[in-house]
Each structure stands twice: as C-alpha cells, then as structure tokens.
C-alpha cells in the first residue's frame, strides 16, 4: 500500500436534491428535512454508516475530523443543520448540508483514485434510487457553486513532494498545472508552509470532461510528478549534508521532550524521505503517515481525552512521537 510519494487518494462527489434550494438559501426546517431524507436513504445502503448530527458532537471531535480530512473546515465552522454519515473505518463519508446537500467522499491510502471513484460512484448510484438529484442534460449535476457543475467530482491525491518542494520546483509547476485544469497546494497552511512538503493535487475542471478522463488525466500528472520527485530525491541524497539532515531529524524526534506541530511535521517529512531512500530502515512509511495525522492539536487532545494548553500539547506530542518511533 505504501508508496514513496503518494500518501492518499480522495474522490468526492457533490450532489443536490432537486426539490430543495441549495444550502445557502435553505430554511432551518428545510435543512432538517434534507438531513432526514438523506439519513433514510443512507440507512438502505449495504455499507454500515454511523450517522451523527454535527450539533451533537464536541468541538474537539469536530476539529479532529477536519484534521483527519473527514470533513471540511467550513463544515466544522457552523454545525447547525448539518450531519455526517461515516463508515467505521472512515474511508467513506457523506457530509450533509455542506456547500451542497450531499458531499460523498471516499479516501483510500496510496494511489487508488480508480478504486475510490468506483466506491463513490456506487454509493451515488444507490442513493439516487431514493433521492432525486438535481441534474441538467447540458450542465450535468447542478451545484451551489458553478465551479463544481458537471460531474461534481473533485479527485485529489496527497503527495509528499519534499525534494521538489525543497528545490522550489512545485511553485513553478503549479502555474503550468493551472493551465491544464489542475491545482496543487500545500496541505498545512496555504503556500507559506512549504516545509511540510505535503501537497494536494486535484482536478479543477468538472464540466465537459467525464469522471473517467478526469481521473486518468490526474493520474498521469500524478505519476509524472512522482517520477520527477524520485529523481530529485536521488540527487539530493548524494549530498552528505542532506543525509546528515535526515539522521539529525530522526535524532530529534527520538529524544525531544517538547515539539511544536510545525517542527514535528518538518522532521517527520525528512524521516519519511530517509525511509523511502533506504537511509532509515526500522520505521515504516505507514507509521510516519499515521503520526502526521495523530500529532495534530485536536487529534492529540482527543487521544488524551482532555483539553491541553499549547505547551502541554508540545509535551504530549513529543512523548507520542518518541514512543511510536522507538
């Protein structure tokens, strides 16, 4: 499953019920009706979903869901009249009354866009037996924001582009990708925090291109980027300074008593590179990828079962990393 460059794949489909205004124009009563209709339809799916009203769960749990990419930051911001259906393994989720009535999302580890799409496609087909989705022959699935018209599909891959990021190649590539209808952005903070080296590549165009073509194009770009990343990594690793940087990163992670989120992400990124290039052998990529998620503030506090001050978090984070990597 683990791939040196692609961490995870995600596909989401935007759908709206034809008989209700889009969420920006809905009354509270209509929101509740849509939640109930979708709840009943989800109940009939073969997959087992947990159904939660966002108002019923704690702020900490909500933010932790954002950190796990299960829901969008916007969805967490205002929880009124919103609900989430999610499978136990969290690979399939349906946000209800986000920007659209339904956002069906499937996340899979590694480069598994086709598998993720097939699942999202099946859920959509099954749901549409019970729900009447807004669709126009010319414009496709109708969405609140015209940027999602057509297939309503946004496919994305999370990529570890530490070497390309280091050589500032990602910002150069970003401009060209834009012209091809793709977008690449840093996942920890917009643009500024390139140190994390985690990027999300996704399709922008949803109208006039089929789901299959959009995914194939995305995979092509993704493979080209991955190849270029691997070549750049090989060159970087020739330098003793770089090997030293990776070993020191591992050293700090193994011994630090306090560590901020930003520093931890940066060092884990270096260690991840060390693993894929064979410099570090006794840690798996999966361990690093799962640490990247669990060291985030809300996830950390959720695991500890209580709210923590920033310095308490730094302490808990350092401890979690030490124990995991040992």
């Amino acid at each position, binding site marked *: 499953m683990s791939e040196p460059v692609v961490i995870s794949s995600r596909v989401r489909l935007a759908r*709206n019920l*034809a008989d*209700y*205004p*889009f969420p*920006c*124009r809905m009354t509270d009563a209509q929101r509740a009706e849509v939640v109930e209709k979708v709840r009943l339809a989800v109940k009939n799916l073969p997959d087992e979903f947990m159904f939660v009203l966002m108002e019923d769960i704690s702020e900490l749990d909500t933010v932790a869901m954002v950190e796990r990419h299960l829901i969008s930051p916007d969805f967490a911001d205002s929880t009124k009249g919103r609900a989430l259906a999610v499978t136990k393994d969290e690979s399939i989720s349906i946000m209800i009354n986000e920007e659209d009535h339904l956002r069906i999302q499937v996340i899979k580890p590694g480069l598994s866009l086709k598998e993720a799409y097939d699942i999202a*496609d099946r859920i*959509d*087909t099954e749901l*549409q037996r019970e729900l009447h*989705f*807004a*669709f*126009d*022959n*010319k*414009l*496709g*699935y*109708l*969405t*609140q*924001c*015209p*940027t999602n*018209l*057509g*297939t309503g*599909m946004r496919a994305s891959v999370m990529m570890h582009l530490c070497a390309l990021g280091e050589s500032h190649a990602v910002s150069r590539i970003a401009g060209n990708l834009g012209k091809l*209808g793709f977008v690449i952005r840093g996942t920890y903070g917009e643009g500024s925090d390139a140190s994390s080296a985690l990027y999300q590549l996704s399709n*922008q*165009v*949803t*109208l*006039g*291109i*089929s*789901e*299959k*073509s959009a995914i194939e194009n995305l995979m092509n770009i993704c493979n080209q980027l991955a190849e270029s990343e691997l070549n750049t990594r090989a060159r970087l690793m020739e330098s003793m300074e770089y090997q030293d940087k990776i070993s020191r990163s591992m050293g700090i992670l193994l011994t630090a008593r306090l560590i901020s989120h930003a520093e931890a992400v940066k060092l884990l990124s270096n260690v991840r590179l060390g693993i894929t290039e064979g410099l570090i052998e006794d840690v798996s990529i999966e361990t690093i990828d799962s640490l990247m998620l669990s060291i985030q503030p809300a996830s950390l506090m959720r695991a500890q079962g209580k709210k923590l001050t920033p310095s308490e978090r730094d302490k808990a984070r350092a401890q979690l990393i030490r124990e995991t990597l040992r």
Partner: protein
Amino acid sequence: MKCQKCKVKNATTQVKRVVNGEYEEYMLCADCAHEMGFDNIFDNSMPDMFGGLIKSLFGTALPARSQATRCPVCGSSFGDISNTGKVGCAKCYEAFLSDLLPSIRRIHGNTTHCGKSPESPAISDKSVADMPTSPTVQELKAELEQAVKEQNFEYAAQLRDKIKEMEESTNE
C-alpha cells in the same frame, strides 16, 4: 456587394466602429442596418450586434434583465448570485442561464456536461462520453452578448474571432 448579415440584399450602409481598440467594419443592407439600430444618427448609444438583434426580435416580450428579475423558486436575483458566488437553487441555472454561461465557460472552458447522468449511470465508462463537445455558434453568440453587457471586451473580442472563424469554416 451583398449585405454581410442577410447575404441577400445589396449593402448600402457602411458601419465602422472601434471596439476595445480594434477596428471593425460591416457592410449592411438598409433593412439589416435598421434592424440593428445603425440607421439612427441621433442615437449615439449603438446597441451591440447581437443584443440589439435579440431585443428587436422579442420586443417588449423579453423582460428587462435587471436586479429585479428573480428566480421563481428561491427568489435569488442574478445580483445575489454574482455577489456571493453561490447559486440559489437548481432552477436558477435555468432562470439565469445566459448570465451564468460566460462565467461557467471561464471556469471550465466548456459548457456541456459529459459523464455520468442519473438516467445512464454507466455512461462515464463509454469512450464516446470522453469526447469534449464544442460550443455552437448560437451559444457563443449568447455569450458574446453577455460579455459585451458586462463590458468584458477582451473576452468579447476573443469570442467574436471564434464566431467569425466558425462561420467562415461552415461557409467554405
């Protein structure tokens, strides 16, 4: 010389104008010139090519597109949509289609869906669905009209060239 619009009658009226810094010249017959409002020398506000045409065809039957025009289902005006970037409901796409098309084309470079549909969920697997469809001259003209209304002259000039190109290739 025949009129460039109806291509039937003899051209008697020469129209010269500069749009977005680009010089244009048309030769029209008296009827077409009148229809397009080019015969009134006292009226300096010449209607744009296609907007004028459509208005003269529909007369007053076509409601004036303004902030007051609202979606019959959700009550959104086009102003609401362009201010928030959010469309109010599915019906808005019908009610404001001509207003929305230029932005849709700018976003996607295309205005025709291909891929899955509720009736034929499997269509996305067919290769024929992968063929992008080109816009028709009619669609481009509607967009041109809107672009001129929005004073988006750069985009309008691109559309005009494209329409000209398409019309020439069909005439050949």
